[in-house]
């Protein structure tokens, strides 16, 4: 079971009435680079995983550089200290505004999530396949949100958390459970769909630009840049904020104060 390259191509081709050629190179797949077998389980090391590792390595390296520089940090900030303080304070106030001062410690978690999603979304600009264009990544991040939502609900609400599923009337229990399950699904698919969609459109645009008659080759200048600006930078940033904001809101909603 799986939706594979050719199916995506024909799906897209049918949607826009393009005469798709299965041999053309609409490259939206996450390639499987290595297949490991550990304890009878086949583990795929896909492009998504490798790209995630690259992004992680880059982020941790940057964090290390700032950490080392922090030794020279001054009471009056200057240079790179301003930048990192701006970023951290932005995240801190973002968490505080969405979740209240009391739960500001969630910033520790969401700073990492924010950085991972943002850099993943923007990595498309450097020619990487964004890890967030893979449902496995978004599902994994959403899973943590799902766990946090219900952990915080039970921890702070105790009995009232379970009672909440029977409200306003007990008959609605199945609907309440479905709505709880819909939360992570919508969260993960929103991010995944946006980034994958942008990637597919960009792939198609490159295909189309590659097949242009020579008189129209002038469109190769500027058009991809503008579209990247929208699909990678704009959509990437917006989707990051939406994902983190919604995660925090869902957790805050379940916290019984």
């Amino acid at each position, binding site marked *: 079971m799986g939706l594979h390259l050719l199916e995506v191509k024909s799906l897209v081709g049918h949607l826009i009435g393009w005469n798709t050629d299965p041999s053309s190179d609409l490259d939206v797949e996450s390639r499987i680079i290595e297949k490991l077998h550990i304890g009878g389980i*086949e583990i*795929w090391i896909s492009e998504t*995983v490798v790209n995630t590792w690259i992004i992680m390595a880059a982020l941790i390296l940057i*964090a290390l550089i*700032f950490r080392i520089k922090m030794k020279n940090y001054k009471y009056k900030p200057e240079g790179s200290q301003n930048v990192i303080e701006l970023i*951290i304070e932005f995240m801190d106030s973002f968490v505080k505004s969405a979740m209240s001062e009391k739960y500001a410690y969630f910033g520790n978690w969401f*700073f990492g999530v924010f950085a991972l999603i943002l850099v993943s979304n923007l990595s498309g600009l450097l020619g990487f396949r964004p890890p967030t264009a893979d449902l496995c990544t978004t599902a994994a991040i959403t899973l943590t949100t799902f766990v946090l939502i219900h952990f915080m609900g039970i921890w702070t609400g105790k009995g009232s958390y379970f009672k909440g599923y029977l409200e306003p009337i007990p008959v609605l229990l199945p609907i309440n459970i479905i709505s709880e399950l819909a939360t992570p699904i919508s969260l993960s698919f929103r991010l995944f769909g946006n980034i994958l969609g942008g990637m597919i459109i960009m792939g198609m645009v490159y295909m189309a630009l590659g097949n242009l008659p020579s008189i129209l080759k002038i469109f190769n200048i500027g058009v991809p840049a503008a579209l990247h600006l929208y699909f990678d930078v704009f959509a990437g940033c917006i989707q990051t904020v939406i994902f983190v904001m919604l995660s925090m809101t869902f957790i805050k909603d379940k916290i019984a104060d």
Partner: protein
Amino acid sequence: MEGYVIILDQHTLVLVAIQLINTCVLCFALSKLLYKPVLNFVNARKEKIAEQIDTAEAKLSEANALKTEYENKLKNIDAERMEILDQARAQANENSRQIIADAKTEADNIHNRAITDIKREEEKAKDEIKKQIIEVSTMVSGKFIAANMTEEEQQKLVDDTISDLEGVEWLN
């Protein structure tokens, strides 16, 4: 090379697990390396700034209190100065009056002494003149008498003259 766009099988679970670990590792590392230390640093500074603002406010109120105190003192100083000046003026007036009075007394004394001296000199001069008149008249009358008078007549004349002289009022 094999690939996928969406897969929903056991591989999905493995990939989700890998990505879950990746996410957790990254979040943990970023939190430990960057988020917490920087936030602690920033919060420490915030507290320090708040403390400094509090100190500054306390010092300001202290300064205002001192200012009021010194302003009051300055106002009092004005009054005090006026008082001292008034006293000094009164003292000076008193002194000048005293000096003038002393000078007047001294002048009066000098004047009186001069008048006394003049009177004494006058008396002296009167006596002198009296003596000279006596001498001259004695000499003249001597010559007259020697020519035509007896001893008795002479004596009588002398006595009469002297008594006449004593009756004369001498003028200045």
